[in-house]
Every structure is written in structure tokens, then in C-alpha cells.
């Protein structure tokens, strides 16, 4: 499996920085997500995670997004549902979300993900 | 001899000036304070006719003066039909359908609208908003009035010359009306105090009457007393208020609320009472927009108790009939207003008790102080 690296940018739209590493099983997404074509951006990321879960190896998902629009919200939900499915199938999954605990809207959004998926998301203040 | 002629000359000048122009120093117009702080700030007062105490006073005399028709054999004033006890509509005692018969024997095409709180109407007068600041029309071929800037159709002033000439109103003669008013010396001082001139013409007559009409302000209903914390409403009235201001009866989107104390939005709406609009003199006649078919002004609900019959054509004689219409009688057409969600199922479908409560609330909007206010009654 190839690693994924997408450098983030803020040129018209907000592209998050993405680093998915097959060797150490750490997936990280950070910055802001507000894309022109959200599905086109996230489809390969979701496909990568799906392929990774076939290996049976542990996966750490670090999220450091500070802002995401509605369509990104949906794509992230798809990722978290996939992770939960992997967990239920016996996979070792750790999800950490690094955020500013003064951002109450973000805190609420993370909580919504926890409630909607049943996934444990460690909310880490930074 | 020379001295005599000089004396004669000076005497003539002196006497003439007394006759035509009292000293300019004595024209001191006092602004008229409408005095309703909880109503909107934006008032429809044209720059060329600011309201003054003496302007309103003059207007009141003219409003009630039957010489306004210019026809001694058919005297008629504004007040002939616009009666204070009916919030300056005509009521149903004389004309059972609420449509007066003019001096020509013709009926008015629609029932009246009340003359209250008009100064806050910025969207146009009459049922279809024909009289509005953007109307470029001058004069009227139909009424035999020449196109002149005095005979415009932009504001309340315009309704005066129209009323004098309209066959279904005074069917009168403007120049005769002016002559008859001029003849009465009583008016010279009033015109001077109002406008700084003893000249009397239709322009100043219209302006004065318009000032009086703008002064007709109603804001002391039972509900206003409640809002000021002076009285309590009954449980039924409170339930009625709740129905009025929720999507149960959904009256508030068009007729306002405590936050919109004019109790009208002054907009034009199609309230789903018709499906055939052929021949109607509705809003579409003014805007030329076919989507405005069936739209008429939303009248104020202030003093609604006194202003039967209801709707532009007076089809409903009582408030109960109106409520029954809104409860079960709404009709779909391609022109229904997008705000009228109750039309989706033919009406509000409230219970009899709900309707009683709604009516009880509507009656709290009656302002007995207004209909008895001596400042608005016949001064003659």
C-alpha cells in the first residue's frame, strides 16, 4: 500500500493536510476542510482506510481539524463509521481528536460523532 | 395737490398690503407632533407638506366642509362618508353593503379603508396601492382633470382632488369648490396660519386635508393598555392572542403583532378568497404583474369592530363571517400568497372555542378613545 500525503492549502478552498502512513498505521488529518468537490477528495482516503483494515493491523487516527463544512462532516462520518466497523470486527482502533477546548462548536461536533457512531474518540486539548 | 396724490398713493399701498398679506412676521408654523413613540419612525410625510398645528386644524375644517363638492345643490364633504364612529369608514347604517353612493348615483367600486395611522403607510394607498410615490400619472382623462403636477397620484393629497371629481364620490367641480371655500372669509386667516398665504387653491386645500388625515392616529386600544401594563386581558383574550401569533391561526404574518403595533404589515396579499380575478381592480392593475392578481392591501385590525363590512368588496358583514372564511373557506389558485400555509388545507380548522377566543382578542384592538376623540370630530 502506498502512503498518502496531501499538503494542506488555503487557496480559495480549504484543503486539509493528510498523512496516512501504512508502515506505522498512523493516519492524520489536520487544518481545515472546505473543498470544492468533497467526495472527490475523500473517496481515496476512505478507500485507503478500507484497504488498510483488511490487513488486521492496529490503526491510529489522529484528527486535528479545526473547521469542516457540511459536506466534509459527512465524509468524516463515513470514515468514523468505517473505523467503528473495523473495531467491531476485532481491529485495534484508536481515534484521537486534538482541539482547543474553548471551541465549543467543535467540541459539540466531536460529541455528535461519538454519539452517532459509538466510536470512542479521545478528545485531547491542545 | 401733489401732496394729496402722494398721500393717496401711500394709503393705497398700505391698505392693499393689509388686504393681501398680513405681516410676514406673524407666520410661525408650529410643527405637529404625532406623538406615538412605540410606532415606527418612518412616516410618509412629503417634504412639501410638513405637518403643522394650524395645517391640521385647517384640514379638519375642510374635511368636514360640505362645500368641498363645489356643488351647492349636492353638498358633500369627506366626512359625509368617512365617519369617525366607524374609524372613518362609512359603516353599514346608510349603505348596507358598505359602499356609499356618490353624488352621481354611482356606487363606489370597493368598500372603504379606515383612515387611521395612514402616516405610517409607505407602500401605497387604496386597496391596490394606486396612490404611491412612484406613480408618474398626472391628472385623469376619466375625471376630466388636466395633467398638472398638482393633480398627481403620489400621496394622501392626491385623494382630495380625486374625491371631488370621482362620480362615485362628490362628482364635483374643483374650481367651484375652491371658489366657495375662498368666499368664506373665515378661511383666510386659517390658510395664512397654515401656509403663510391667504391664497386659496386646490393644492393647499389638498395639503391641509392630507395633514388632518395624517393626524388621525389610533394607539390607545384595550390591547395597548395591556401592553403598557395598565390592565389585564382575560384568559380568552390571551388564548386568542396566542392563536393569532402562532401558526394555528397564523394571522400575524400579514396583520402584525405586538411587535408590529400598526396591526398590519401594509403589504398586498392574495388571501385566497377568490379563484376568478377577471375584472378586479387589484394590485396587478397597478404593478402590471400578473402574479399580483387577487392581491389587495392588508388592512389594519385596529378598530376592526367598527369597520364592517370586510374585504375589499364588503362580502363579509360580520367578524364571525370573516373568521369562518379563514377557518374553512380558503380557496386555492395559482396566485395564492406563499405565506398562506393554511390554504393548503382550506383553512385554519380551529374549534368553535378557538374562534371565540380569537374574536375576543380582535376586539381588544378597539380604540374607543379614538372614535370619541374631539380633536377629530366636526369642528363646525
Amino acid at each position, binding site marked *: 500500500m502506498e502512503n498518502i500525503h496531501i499538503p494542506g492549502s488555503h487557496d480559495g478552498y*480549504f484543503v486539509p493536510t493528510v498523512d496516512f502512513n501504512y508502515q506505522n498505521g498512523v493516519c492524520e488529518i489536520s487544518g481545515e476542510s472546505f473543498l470544492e468537490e468533497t467526495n472527490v477528495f475523500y473517496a481515496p482516503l476512505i478507500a485507503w482506510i478500507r484497504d488498510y483494515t483488511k490487513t488486521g493491523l492496529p490503526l491510529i487516527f489522529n484528527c486535528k481539524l479545526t473547521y469542516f463544512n457540511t459536506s466534509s462532516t459527512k465524509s468524516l462520518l463515513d470514515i468514523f463509521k468505517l473505523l467503528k466497523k473495523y473495531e467491531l470486527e476485532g481491529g485495534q482502533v484508536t481515534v484521537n481528536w486534538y482541539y482547543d477546548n474553548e471551541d465549543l462548536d467543535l467540541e459539540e461536533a466531536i460529541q455528535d460523532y461519538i454519539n452517532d457512531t459509538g466510536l470512542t474518540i479521545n478528545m485531547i486539548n491542545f | 395737490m401733489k401732496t394729496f396724490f402722494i398721500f393717496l398713493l401711500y394709503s393705497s399701498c398700505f391698505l392693499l398690503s393689509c388686504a393681501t398679506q398680513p405681516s410676514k412676521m406673524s407666520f410661525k408654523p408650529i410643527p405637529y407632533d404625532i406623538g406615538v413613540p412605540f410606532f415606527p419612525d418612518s412616516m410618509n410625510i412629503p417634504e412639501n407638506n410638513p405637518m403643522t398645528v394650524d395645517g391640521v386644524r385647517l384640514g379638519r375644517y375642510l374635511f368636514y366642509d360640505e362645500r368641498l363638492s363645489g356643488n351647492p345643490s349636492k353638498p358633500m364633504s369627506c366626512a359625509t362618508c368617512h365617519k369617525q364612529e366607524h374609524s372613518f369608514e362609512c359603516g353599514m347604517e346608510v349603505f348596507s353593503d358598505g359602499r356609499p353612493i356618490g353624488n352621481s348615483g354611482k356606487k363606489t367600486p370597493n368598500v372603504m379603508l379606515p383612515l387611521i395611522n395612514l402616516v405610517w403607510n409607505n407602500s401605497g394607498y387604496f386597496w391596490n396601492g394606486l396612490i404611491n410615490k412612484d406613480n408618474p400619472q398626472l391628472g385623469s382623462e376619466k375625471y376630466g382633470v388636466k395633467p398638472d403636477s398638482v393633480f398627481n397620484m403620489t400621496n394622501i393629497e392626491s385623494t382630495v382632488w380625486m374625491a371631488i371629481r370621482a362620480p362615485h364620490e362628490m362628482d364635483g367641480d374643483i374650481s367651484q369648490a375652491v371658489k366657495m371655500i375662498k368666499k368664506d372669509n373665515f378661511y383666510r386667516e386659517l390658510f395664512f396660519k397654515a401656509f403663510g398665504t391667504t391664497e386659496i387653491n386646490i393644492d393647499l386645500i389638498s395639503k391641509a386635508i392630507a395633514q388632518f388625515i395624517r393626524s388621525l392616529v389610533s394607539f390607545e386600544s384595550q390591547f395597548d393598555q395591556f401592553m403598557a401594563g395598565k390592565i389585564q386581558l382575560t384568559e380568552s383574550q390571551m388564548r386568542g392572542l396566542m392563536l393569532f401569533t402562532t401558526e394555528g391561526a397564523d394571522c400575524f404574518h400579514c396583520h402584525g403583532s405586538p411587535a408590529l403595533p400598526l396591526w398590519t404589515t401594509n403589504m398586498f396579499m392574495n388571501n385566497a378568497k377568490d379563484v376568478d380575478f377577471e375584472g378586479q381592480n387589484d394590485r396587478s392593475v397597478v404593478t402590471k404583474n400578473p402574479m399580483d392578481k387577487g392581491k389587495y392591501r392588508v388592512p389594519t385590525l385596529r378598530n376592526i369592530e367598527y369597520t364592517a363590512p370586510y374585504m375589499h368588496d364588503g362580502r363579509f358583514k360580520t367578524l364571525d363571517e370573516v373568521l369562518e372564511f379563514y377557518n374553512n373557506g380558503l380557496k386555492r389558485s395559482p396566485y395564492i400568497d406563499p405565506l398562506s400555509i393554511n390554504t393548503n388545507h382550506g383553512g385554519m380548522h380551529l374549534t368553535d372555542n378557538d374562534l371565540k377566543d380569537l374574536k375576543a382578542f380582535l376586539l381588544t384592538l378597539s380604540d374607543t378613545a379614538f372614535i370619541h376623540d374631539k380633536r377629530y370630530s366636526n369642528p363646525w
Partner: protein
Amino acid sequence: MTKSIIGLILFCLVCFRVSAQTKDGIKFTFTCQDKALKLNEMIYYSSNKQSYKVCQCQFFLSNIEIIYKDKKRKKIENSIHYTDIEIPKSLVWYPENGFNLENADSLEFTFGFDSTQNRSYRFKNPPENLMFWPDYLGGGYHYMKTNILYLDKDNNINAFNCHIGRGQIYNSENKPIKYIDNDFRIKIPIKRVDNFAVINLDISTIFDYPNAVLFSDYGGIMNNQKAMKMFCENIKAAFEK
């Protein structure tokens, strides 16, 4: 001599720049199904295949904030704007003197009003005063009124009002016991057109995404907090389009 000429040129450039600076502001646009909105034309279909036309759209935005490329933020406190698709001058907003979009990265604003600003009777004059939200339903003002007409399955014309404001929680006797503020913050990347940042509202998204709406499920929603919350999700997406 050369220095003087250079100095003169520089001076002229500065003058040009100063005189070329115009007032920056915000422009509001409306789309429906990704094209410029056509009002009062029955040409649109919701994702539930209901035919509709858009008749009116009015909304309030407040507390606009610019976020610059260097992450600095400038919030214009107590800024409020009323937009009405039928009032052309409301489609342009100059939030304040010195509103400057140079090096701006994104805009953030509140849809509607926050709880401290959403006070009844604060607007005395039209058109803003027409947006009042009844006291029984929570008071303050509508954040939005989007009014449409649609055709039902029998091809009859019906009205639907997407009216958003304070929501209510009711007790078993159907009396409101609590009020919910439905305002929210939205952030969008800057879209510049000349000296304006454009805020677009895609009306079709209000009815389609992320929640597909069936108009015939509703008439009005002012006393339906669940529906208003759902529509708020869609409205957020509609501003993001």
C-alpha cells in the same frame, strides 16, 4: 535628477494606490440548483421530486468576522444585516468604515442573531420590523423566511414556509416551557468579486442537503424545533455552496 524622477514615480504610484482604494463590502447572491436563482418560476425540483418555485427569501446575518491569511481575526461587533432578495439595495453590505478584505482568507458570521442580540422590539421600522418572531414562540426575530409554492401529488399548489427563529420545547399540555436559540456560526472561504466578498445562498440546498425535505410533511415549522434544527443543517450547507 534621477533620484528626483524615481521619487516622483514612487509618489505617483502611492497616489494611484491611495486613490484606487475603494470601500470593501459584501455582496449577497442567490442560486438554486447551482444556477442564478429565478424567482417565481415553477422550474425547480427537490431531491424528493417535488416541483416548486421560490417566491421570497429574507434573512439576517450578524457578527461578521474576517479571518486573514496570517490567522489574525477582525470581528465587527454588533454588526447586523438584513438581506431581502426583493430589495436590491439590501444585497450589498458595507459593515463598517475601513472594512478591508486585503489578505482576507475567510469570513465567519452568525446566521440570525445570538441570544443577546435577538431582542423583541429592537427594530421599529420596515423591512426589519416585519421579521418579528412572536413572543409566545420565543420572541426576537425570524432569522430567515424562505417562502415557496410547490405542487403536491395531485398537482395542487401549496405553500411552504421555511421560517427559522427561536425554537420551543413543549410540555404535555402543549405549552412552551423552554426556548432554544437556533443561531449558528458559519465560516466560508473568501470569494472576491472586485472589492466585495460574496456570500451566496443556494436555495435548493435548503431543501435537499444534507437532509432531503418533503414539503408536504410541513406547512410551517415555527413551532417545530426538530424541523428547524434539521433545516438549520441544510441552511449551513446552503451558505457553503
